[in-house]
């Protein structure tokens, strides 16, 4: 029976909007630390259960079909580089790669240390216990890197993903270039963990792990729902947050339960505390949609900063041919990681980047035409393939900082509306001028590093690439950045809106910058920290 069958007003102590990975962390912690009623509202549908995922994976592998059916809302084609259309119970983390590096201590102090960007209002040390908690909740398998590059107070909850035979050889190669690398931390089980199976190298972690060895938020929701610790309302789109008559507190979330015909049933969620956990796009979008006579620019937006300072990072990537025999396919999504370049040396132009290395099949696949241009069939194809795979190829990638700019923004698009008449967001990413000025230097220095690596192994750079399609910046964050000054930020260091004492924003939108590493673990650590404040 529908959860709405008997009522259209739903009351709770905490109403969480969104059900992605940050929402799951907030709900998990609150369910352990407070007794009140927790309600979660998700615009998308339920994700398919674990038992169906092998079959869905097969369709993906054979035909490229989306393994997450009904994971988006129709009519949400928008202007600008959206990270993903995914909108369902579990959010984008249903098909994430499970890669979980922490940000580095330097990320929180780039202004103080390097004179660029903006310092966060919190330090790495303040976030460390919440990083640890997130790693334990999700189950992170990781290798401790050198302490100076990779500080942490406690060990990883699981032993690292073993380096494959290929990565072992590639690690020896990078050592020749003077680079210290180790096993990338991942939210994948290197042993059975939390009732989920050990990874068995199916190697389709992104977009779908068929056995649940990779953490995804549906596992948290299943557990919390089974224990009646949360009530989750899927297919329910929050359209607007509404203020109390006599104060700047949030009174309700006005939503619509989507039905199959595309219309919807209005639903009102009332709560003491509201947590917007809808990612870097939909969090700012909701606050802007919630404009009223008392908040004409949208909620939380007296500073005019809602939707501003979107941030991400770019990468330089290269494929390097090496005179070593590799066997691609052993566990291809796993990689080596280095944080050796996360601290910009004093007296040089600013550049911070991570470094990763994977096995690769680039330029080592079977081909139809030989070097002479002649078309091959039968044994010729296999013979040619064997000959060319006597040596291996490594994929190397460096994410480098892009310093956020206020004009990198999400705005409401008056020309595009959803089925309920609400304007869709419009996204535009721009580098801060200082960042744009550094770009040529950054690219040049990273390419020089790749060339140095190739030479150290007696290899050759055979392809260079930059990920910059349509102005895209990877692992996007921002839109509700945190800070101590209400004039320059949207939320405080706990994620509480400066303008509304019972409104919190969690995860990606609150980040001040995007570092040069995947952000998901940081989003979840921030979310847990916010949950600790809500329960206090």
């Amino acid at each position: 029976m529908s959860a709405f069958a008997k009522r259209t007003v739903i009351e709770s102590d905490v109403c969480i909007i969104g059900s992605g990975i940050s929402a799951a962390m907030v709900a998990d912690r609150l369910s352990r630390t407070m007794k009140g009623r927790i309600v979660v509202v998700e615009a998308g549908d339920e994700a398919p259960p674990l038992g169906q995922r092998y079959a869905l994976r097969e369709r993906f592998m054979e035909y490229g079909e989306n393994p997450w059916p009904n994971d988006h809302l129709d009519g949400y084609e928008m202007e600008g580089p959206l990270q993903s259309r995914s909108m369902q119970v579990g959010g984008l983390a249903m098909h994430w790669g499970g890669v979980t590096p922490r940000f580095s201590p330097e990320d929180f102090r780039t202004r103080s240390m390097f004179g660029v960007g903006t310092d966060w209002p919190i330090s790495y040390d303040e976030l460390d216990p919440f990083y640890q908690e997130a790693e334990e909740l999700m189950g992170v398998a990781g290798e401790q890197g050198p302490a100076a590059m990779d500080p942490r107070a406690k060990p990883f909850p699981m032993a690292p993903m073993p380096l494959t035979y290929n990565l072992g050889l590639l690690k020896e190669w990078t050592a020749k270039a003077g680079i210290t690398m180790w096993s990338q931390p991942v939210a994948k089980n290197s042993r059975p963990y939390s009732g989920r199976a050990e990874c068995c190298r199916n190697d389709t972690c992104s977009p779908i792990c068929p056995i649940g060895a990779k953490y995804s938020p549906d596992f948290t929701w299943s557990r919390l729902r089974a224990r009646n610790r949360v009530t989750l309302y899927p297919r329910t789109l929050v359209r607007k947050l509404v203020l109390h008559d006599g104060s700047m507190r949030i009174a309700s979330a006005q939503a619509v339960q989507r039905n199959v015909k595309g219309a919807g049933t209005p639903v009102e969620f009332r709560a003491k505390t509201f947590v917007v956990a809808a990612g870097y796009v939909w969090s700012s979008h909701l606050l802007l949609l919630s404009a009223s006579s008392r908040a004409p620019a949208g909620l939380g937006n007296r500073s005019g900063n809602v939707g501003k300072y979107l941030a991400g990072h770019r990468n330089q990537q290269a494929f390097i041919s090496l005179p070593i025999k590799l066997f691609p396919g052993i566990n291809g999504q796993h990689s080596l990681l280095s944080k050796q370049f996360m601290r910009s040396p004093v007296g040089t132009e600013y550049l911070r980047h991570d470094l990763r290395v994977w096995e690769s099949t680039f330029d080592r696949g079977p081909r139809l035409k030989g070097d002479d241009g002649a078309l091959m069939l039968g044994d010729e194809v296999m013979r040619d393939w064997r000959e060319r795979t006597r040596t291996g190829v490594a994929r190397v990638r460096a994410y480098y900082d892009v310093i956020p700019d206020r004009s990198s923004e999400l705005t409401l698009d008056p020309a595009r509306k959803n089925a309920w008449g609400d304007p869709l967001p419009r996204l535009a990413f721009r580098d801060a001028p200082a960042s744009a000025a550094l770009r040529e230097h950054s690219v040049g220095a990273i390419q020089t590093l790749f060339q140095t690596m190739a030479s150290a192994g007696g290899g050759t750079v055979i392809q260079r690439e930059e990920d910059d399609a349509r102005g895209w910046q990877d692992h996007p964050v921002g839109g509700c950045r945190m800070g101590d000054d209400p004039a320059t930020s949207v939320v405080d260091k706990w994620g509480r809106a400066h303008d509304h004492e019972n409104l919190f924003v969690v995860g990606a939108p609150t980040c001040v910058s995007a570092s040069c590493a995947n952000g998901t673990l940081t989003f979840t650590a921030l979310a847990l920290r916010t949950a600790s404040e809500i329960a206090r």
Partner: protein
Amino acid sequence: MPLSRRAFLGALAAAMPAAVLIRHAHAAAVDDIAASPRTLQALGEAVLPSELGRAGTLAAVSAFQRWIAGYREHVELVHGYGTSALGTTGPTPATKWAAQLDALDRTARADGARSFAALPLERRREIVRRELTALKADRIGAVGRAPHVALALLSHWYDTPDATNRCYQVKIDKENCRPLATSARRPLPLAQVRT
């Protein structure tokens, strides 16, 4: 006199709405390829490596036929990152490939042979080379976008774990469930199998 494949598809086109026609055309093409597999098998012998042997080639061809039968049109593709645009699978390639198999038989008959399968292996390869050259085919790409059935069959097999294992002559078994603990060692050599 029974309708030829082409005449049957033509009759369907005249009689049905487009969506229904497409579904029927796909099913008809799948049935047709399944009903007379000799041409496809003969194509497999011409384009796949001989080390597969007869049994391996037949298995590869059967797997390809299952792929064709399982194809669905207008199904949402996996999302790309960085864009809100969604994509869907394209029209069935089965009808085109069935027609190309017919064309191989016609070419063989023009050569004086009973069918494509009746031609010597090298002559079959010559015909396939000519077809692929005419289509300006230059790579082994995605199966569903292959411009010719010969290339689709090649693409399908070369994407399998078996193909990778044979290339490297070790047991990698990519994308299969395998113990994590064994990933650190060099993959074991393939067992020598007499073919």
